């Protein structure tokens, strides 16, 4: 009987945790300072024409434990990918006998802020490039190496390393170059298009219901300034297009291939929606 009472008490306590978390709602009021040194701008005013007044990083929607993991680079599991990415940057690969560092000698200067400015118009390809596509173009054209397959470990590690060199720098996508504005429009259309048997658009959850819980999942604004992101649920680094596909799959829709025109347009638009938020790569999320 005593045991039973204890069990019920434990269950009740667990329920209260669930209830209080769900009653708390909204983004938490907290500051992200990495290693007690680098303050990250996780709340910024929205650009003109944005549906929100304030842009808020997904960090504010996570538990204290998850937030702490990101704030401590020694504990952040994503930092292992940064280290691995730096190794790849300096390792010769392909028939031309080159590494990334062979051409981009001063990585620190060359990469500073670079990741914060992607996706970028690529004139030769006639479409926007993200870091992953840029890496593959370099590998094929300059290194004469095989392009990485989508979500290959090395692709995720190198992308994470490159983005991490912009840690604490504001995300900004240049829509004035090439046909970026058209891709933005296409991405916006997709953002508001309902997909799948569950009939949900990105906007349905991330624009209309951010700050609310769907089951145990606290819906954020869906900003992308932390990608690639270490996801505790998967115990792995997760690329942006992997997350896009996961979300679309959850609506019970067929999902487009990674780096397809649809997902590149979505990346352009969603990156713009987070304009001014600092890069957090590697962010830690649930």
């Amino acid at each position, binding site marked *: 009987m005593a045991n039973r009472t204890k069990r019920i008490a434990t269950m009740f306590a667990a329920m209260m945790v669930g209830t209080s978390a769900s009653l708390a709602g909204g983004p938490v009021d907290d500051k992200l300072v990495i290693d007690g040194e680098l303050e990250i701008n996780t709340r910024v005013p929205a650009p003109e024409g944005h549906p929100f007044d304030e842009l808020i990083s997904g960090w504010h929607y996570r538990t204290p434990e998850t937030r702490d993991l990101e704030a401590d680079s020694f504990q952040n599991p994503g930092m292992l990918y940064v280290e691995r990415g730096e190794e790849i940057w300096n390792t010769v690969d392909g028939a031309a006998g080159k590494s990334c560092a062979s051409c981009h000698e001063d990585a620190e200067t060359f990469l500073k802020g670079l990741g914060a400015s992607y996706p970028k118009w690529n004139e030769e390809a006639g479409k926007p490039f993200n870091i992953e596509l840029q890496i593959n173009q370099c590998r094929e054209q300059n290194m004469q190496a095989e392009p990485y397959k989508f979500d290959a470990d090395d692709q995720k590690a190198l992308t994470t390393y490159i983005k991490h060199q912009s840690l604490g720098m504001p995300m900004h996508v240049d829509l004035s170059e090439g046909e970026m504005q058209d891709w933005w429009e296409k991405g916006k259309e997709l953002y508001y298009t309902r997909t799948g*048997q569950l*009939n949900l658009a990105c906007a349905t959850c991330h624009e209309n219901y951010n700050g609310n819980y769907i089951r145990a999942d606290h819906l954020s604004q869906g900003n992308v300034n932390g990608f690639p992101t270490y996801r505790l649920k998967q115990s792995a680094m997760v690329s942006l297009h992997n997350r896009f596909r996961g979300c679309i799959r959850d609506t019970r829709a067929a999902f487009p291939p990674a780096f397809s025109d649809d997902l590149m347009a979505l990346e352009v638009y969603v990156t713009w929606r987070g304009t001014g938020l600092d890069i957090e790569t590697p962010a830690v999320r649930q």
Partner: protein
Amino acid sequence: MFKGATQFSLPAAFAGLAILAASAAAAGTVAPDSVPIEDMEMSQSLTGVPGDPLAGREAFADRKKGNCLACHANADLSAQLFHGEVGPVLDGAADRWSEAQLRAIVVNSKDVFGEQTIMPGFYTLKVGINVDEKFAGKTILSAQEVEDVVAYLLTLKEN
């Protein structure tokens, strides 16, 4: 009572009647989107077979079926943790909604609350684009599962 007695005294006839009733029910299953929702109501049963509240409770909680707890809190299922808060709390739902209204909401809430609602339609083929082939041409719940869930919702009373 008289009817029951007749059936017990005529088991063969009873069996025949049961088969007739079952086939009538199958033939009577309403196809998705064939009965319009009017004034937030759908009074016609989708199957003619009364809903089973116990089966409805299961379909309600089942993540692959109703998955209703994803968005709605419901004290009757408090043993399951983390109820969502995107939709209204369902405690006392039966005090606020009639059977015909609940059926309409479960069948296709967009015909009740408007296109913008986040709630999926559980018995409609008017859905989003690019439906995965596993789900193409299918509704989230079967007609009888809708009836079961409605029967279950009608047990959620506070008054």
